């Protein structure tokens, strides 16, 4: 057993940390307040190779292994969780979807644009009445000679308002229900695709979340990704890496909260001494650090399996559910250590507290992860 990162992985982590701390962290509060991440940031990220992290050089990608990718995500989440999720969706749910399931023609058409950041990607599975029960989609995409006719509504689409391309799921065979779902590539500019207003959110407010509605929208036949009616398998395969990504996001947010709380506890004086002298505070810090480390190891273990192409749905779910619950425990304690100041927007822990909440919800709720894990046990 070897817990060491390779030299490449270490360098990538250090460089991602440098960029995240110097460039992103000072802006994170502004992104949160304005509910927006400016285009220039994506442009800079593109120039540095963060928009096609795991794609091969051939398509303009940076060719990182999955572990390096996860290390970058952790560092970015430490600085700005909203940007992290936006990048995570773009890289692991969109670029990777096309790379894994696309035809060579689709890869050549879309991947270089996505890797260069000329295009941003979004992933659209959830519907107003189909969340955890993703198999119960209602949106239809009916094949009509050379096009699919799409009707329906999609909800909570991360990057919805800034995306140029949607990896999108709908029923191509409504009778077959979950066995009749297909994955389609939908370009932003198609007619009759209506992109809704930006959702107002509790946390990760810099990320752009929207509803999409389709009314007799025509998508060319060649935009089918993978096989017709095999869409649910694509959705679930992608979710493995997405979940490890949310695990890394959780660890990043938690670590940032612990760092802040630790520093604050050394500065804040009550009863004539820094509050870090009180054992009640020390034990909180000790538990936070221990839990974060455990979460990180679960995330790295899942990432390791993924990078070796070993099936890891159960391990990914374990990492995701544990890390997201740790993150919420840690941000809660970090606010507590800050006392009243932790409730004020001037302190970063206030944002971490809000940002952490969604990690237990998206890419499968904690309950959904436990379903996956227990299914693995009872199989």
């Amino acid at each position: 057993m070897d817990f060491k990162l390779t030299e490449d992985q270490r360098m990538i982590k250090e460089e991602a940390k440098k960029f995240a701390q110097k460039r992103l962290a000072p802006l994170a509060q502004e992104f949160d307040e304005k509910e927006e991440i400016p285009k220039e940031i994506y442009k800079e990220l593109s120039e540095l190779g963060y928009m096609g992290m795991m794609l091969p050089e051939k398509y303009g990608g940076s060719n990182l292994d999955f572990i390096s990718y996860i290390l970058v995500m952790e560092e970015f989440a430490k600085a700005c969780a909203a940007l992290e999720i936006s990048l995570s969706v773009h890289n692991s749910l969109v670029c990777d979807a096309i790379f894994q399931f696309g035809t060579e023609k689709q890869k050549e058409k879309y991947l270089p644009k996505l890797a260069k950041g000329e295009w941003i990607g979004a992933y659209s599975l959830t519907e107003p009445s189909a969340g955890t029960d993703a198999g119960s989609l209602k949106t239809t995409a009916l094949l009509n000679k050379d096009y699919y006719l799409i009707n329906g509504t999609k909800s909570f689409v991360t990057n919805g308002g800034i995306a140029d391309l949607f990896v999108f799921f709908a029923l191509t065979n409504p009778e077959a229900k979950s066995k009749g779902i297909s994955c389609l590539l939908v370009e932003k500019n198609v007619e009759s695709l209506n992109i809704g207003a930006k959702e107002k959110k509790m946390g990760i407010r810099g990320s752009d979340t929207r509803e999409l509605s389709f009314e007799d929208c025509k998508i060319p036949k060649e935009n089918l990704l993978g096989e017709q009616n095999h869409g649910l398998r694509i959705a679930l395969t992608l979710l493995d890496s997405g979940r490890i990504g949310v695990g890394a996001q959780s660890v990043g947010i938690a670590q940032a909260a612990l760092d802040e709380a630790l520093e604050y506890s050394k500065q804040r004086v009550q009863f004539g001494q820094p509050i870090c002298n009180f054992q009640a505070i020390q034990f909180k810090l000790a538990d936070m650090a221990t839990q974060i480390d455990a979460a990180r190891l679960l995330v790295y273990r899942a990432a390791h399996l993924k990078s070796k192409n070993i099936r890891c749905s159960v391990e990914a779910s374990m990492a995701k559910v544990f890390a997201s619950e740790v993150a919420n425990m840690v941000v809660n304690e970090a606010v507590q250590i800050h006392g009243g100041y932790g409730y004020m927007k001037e302190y970063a822990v206030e944002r971490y507290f809000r940002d952490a909440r969604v990690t237990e919800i998206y890419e499968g709720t904690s309950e959904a992860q436990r379903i996956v894990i227990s299914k693995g046990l009872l199989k």
Partner: protein
Amino acid sequence: MNIVVCIKQVPDTETKIQINSDGSGIVTEGIKYVVNPYDEYALEEGVRLKEKFGGEVTVISLGPERAKEAIRNCLAVGADKGIHLNDPSFEGSDSYVTAKILAKAISEIPFDIILTGKQGVDFDNSQVFAYLANFLNLPFVSVVMDLELSSDLKSVTAKREGEGGEKEMIQIPLPAIIAAQKDLNQPRYASLPGIMKAKKKEIKNLTLSDLDFSADEVGEKGSRVKVKNYSLPPERKAGQIIQGEDPTEVCEILVKLLREEAKII
């Protein structure tokens, strides 16, 4: 154009320096090492010159094995080759010896311009570039904030910051040595593809015998400066706030204190 950039690996500026128990050095355990920040400006300038005029950037560093990582970081940012002056006997070299070893290694490769930082943030001696100029018999400009190459690539005009903050414009013929100040440019971040490519670039390792030195010419033995003891600067006392409503009265107390306690007026 052949561009040489001298870099040093130093403790991260955020490191809390601690002295070891016998005062012979600092505690190195747990220290994170980085490329000397001033050298990053030198490197950035070198890479920009290459992008503008073509050629090659060679990074050269004297330091222990771990300094390879710093060289690799520079390769990730855009340098083409690395040279690592790496021998246990080099340890403890002062600025004079360091420059002597660097000069020997540099004199064996082609160069049109040598870029360095204006000082290392570890010992803050600010001497290597001047010794280097002496050993290589080259002109140099230090604390450079702006650099312009002539169109025939035969000379450079450098804007430097003088002792009193005044600005000087100096023109010197190439080859020459330029020591970078922090306003010279805005160093770029390494790109991910840059990092992935760095490992494929060559880092040449040169030892004592490769450079034809004998062990007593280098390291502590060859050095002219001997460090006897390390100690931390005394902790600064907290400031004093003079309370009072009446400005005249407060000023009188201040003047009295400056005169009698601080003894500076």
